[in-house]
């Protein structure tokens, strides 16, 4: 069942960047791609629980700020060591300038 939660405004995130969003005691990462598409994943790296929102977005990749592990933030797939476990992703929609993620 869908549970759409308002995460941020579109303008809160620069193009090719990421911000942190906390909800119900859990951290999420909201991304804006170079093509101005929005994506959402769990906020912590699966390697050592570091906030990905402090990392670097390059094209479709988020790089963890601690050990430079890489994920495709669109699919959550692992793209570079030392991460081994994929990242959970969430559906995203944009309505009236606001970014919503589905936590259902």
């Amino acid at each position, binding site marked *: 069942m869908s549970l759409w939660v308002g995460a941020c405004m579109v303008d809160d995130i620069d193009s090719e960047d990421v911000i942190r969003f906390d909800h119900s005691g859990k951290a999420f990462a909201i991304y804006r791609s170079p093509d101005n598409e929005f994506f959402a994943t769990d906020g912590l790296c699966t390697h050592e629980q570091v906030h990905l929102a402090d990392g670097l977005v390059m094209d479709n990749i988020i790089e963890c700020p*601690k050990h430079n592990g890489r994920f495709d933030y669109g699919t959550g797939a692992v793209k570079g*060591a030392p991460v*081994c476990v994929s990242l959970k992703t969430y559906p995203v929609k944009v309505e009236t300038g606001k970014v919503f993620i589905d936590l259902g």
Partner: protein
Amino acid sequence: MTVRNYSLLGETAQEAITKGLAAAEWYHTELSRKEMKALMQRRDGPATRDTIIWLGAMVIFAGVGVWLWPSWWSAPFWLAYGVLYGSASDSRWHECGHGTAFRTQWMNDAVYQLACFMIMRNPVTWRWSHARHHTDTYIVGRDPEIVLMRPPDLFRALLGFIGIRDAWLALKEMIVNALGIINAEQATFIPPDEQPKVILIARIWSAVYLATIFAALYMQSILPFMVIGLPRLYGAWHHVLTGLLQHGGLADNVTDHRLNSRTVYMNRLSRFVYWNMNYHVEHHMFPMVPYHALPALHAKIRHDLPEASPSIFAAYREMWPAVKRQLRYEDFFLLRELPPTAKPYRAELHELAVAKIAAE
């Protein structure tokens, strides 16, 4: 006085976890997201230029060395080739392992594999070992890359300048891995899925060294080893000279890189060989920042860091008395003064006050 057990399998490792020193939250100087984003940007240009110079110079020096061989006139060319093979490979291994040197990932991977072969570090093993070094920098029992242990083993440190011990251990490890064995310490930081890659690389390298041995036997000359293998010994001195300064004489078991790492201003040639790792506090605090942006990062956060040592010589002049003192009293460390603009050390977390008083 604390007796340190550096084994990753010993009681100290468990103690570090109990004390909350493992995978802890470390101190960071505050920088805006905008500033960080600019500093973290990846580019292919600087590392491509440096790699062309690095490999190009190696080809020229080795070519002249082979041409003049066996005359002693070849010696200076081998010495130059050796530093590029046995020392510059250390920094290339490091930066490309972080994936920050180039923007294009395959370029990082290609230079990483080549540099790993030269420095004799299995690319899989050392990627995981270095991840642990960044998680638990100089946490005793957790960090597998502590070079100058306490009490310092000065003979071992001196051997490092000619690479004998490191190369011997690396060869032994390569042969053991090539036989399909992963040792217990390696198993603590290399995930099971990655372990077959360790073995595969060890087998490929063993084949390269065997081919070199056959070439030497066929030619009745050590010349093939002057090109492959031996430069890891005769060219190691520069990476040890600069590497000992990274953490030597400073605190261990702390969670603030300003206390356990050292930034040293160096000449341009050493910075080329070392790929700016002289900005070591900065690198540990923000490992996402590529080597070519470290001077800019240093300029932005130096107000929050202990003053950088002005030269390699000055850094050794500071470190050496501390290391000597650690021979008799291993709890001693250098507590470097922060400028008035810096945020203070979190002494309550590190028992610095107690250790400092005890040391004095």
